[in-house]
């Protein structure tokens, strides 16, 4: 039987979908909308730094970034192929999408080290 990476990609897609659903709305609400609009004060830099200094938080952030980016990459791959009728270029599109997710994960890991 031919081996294919598709089940693992769907697994990453599902995991990333759940993580993105649970965490991203509150983070973008706070840091992207309420704080810039002045509804909520920005926390002190030391407070945020103290949160990020915890090794479990750093590891969790890298995992969150990787899962969310793989989720997005998987959806962008399939949606772009359906939307524009370019499924015949699947290999190139997959490489671009998942390559971007891997690159984002590497950036996150470098930031956290």
């Amino acid at each position, binding site marked *: 039987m031919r081996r294919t990476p598709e089940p693992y990609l769907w697994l990453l897609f599902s995991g990333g979908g759940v993580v993105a*659903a649970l965490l991203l709305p509150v983070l*973008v609400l706070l840091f992207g909308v309420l704080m810039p609009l002045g509804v909520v004060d920005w926390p002190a830099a030391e407070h945020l*730094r103290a949160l990020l200094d915890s090794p479990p938080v750093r590891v969790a952030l890298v995992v969150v970034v990787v899962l969310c*980016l793989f989720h997005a*990459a998987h959806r962008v791959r399939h*949606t772009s192929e359906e939307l524009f009728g370019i499924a015949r270029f699947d290999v190139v599109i997959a490489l671009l999408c998942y390559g971007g997710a891997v690159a984002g994960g590497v*950036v996150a890991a470098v930031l956290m080290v």
Partner: protein
Amino acid sequence: MKTRDEVTPGGYRPRRDAFWFARSRAYTVFVLRELTSVFVAWTVVFLLLLVDAVLGGSLPEFAALAARPWMIALNVLALAATCFHAITFLNLAPRATVVRLDGYRLPAWLIQGGNHSLWLAVSAVVAFFVLRGFQ
């Protein structure tokens, strides 16, 4: 706009409607749901910029960037998209997972309700640690 049918050495290829997603409301909602992934990716990039600013000591500059009108508009769209993603994704769970308790199949609304309750709880915990924490 439809392209012509094609008969190639590889086989018959029926003509394709380039605007198939506009044919019905269900298709449009489907495509909108899929496109939330672009804003998921953007939100991750935005948060990585925030982490970089915090670790690099440039939080005031990041706050100034985040307060620009175009950036706020982009993040309002990202908020709407990530909420749409959360609602639709968490609602899909009962179709992917069948939970049985002593032979009794849990109804979909119970699984969805549990998911949305978890979403609220996680959001509250994250907001607590970001805004206040144990001081």
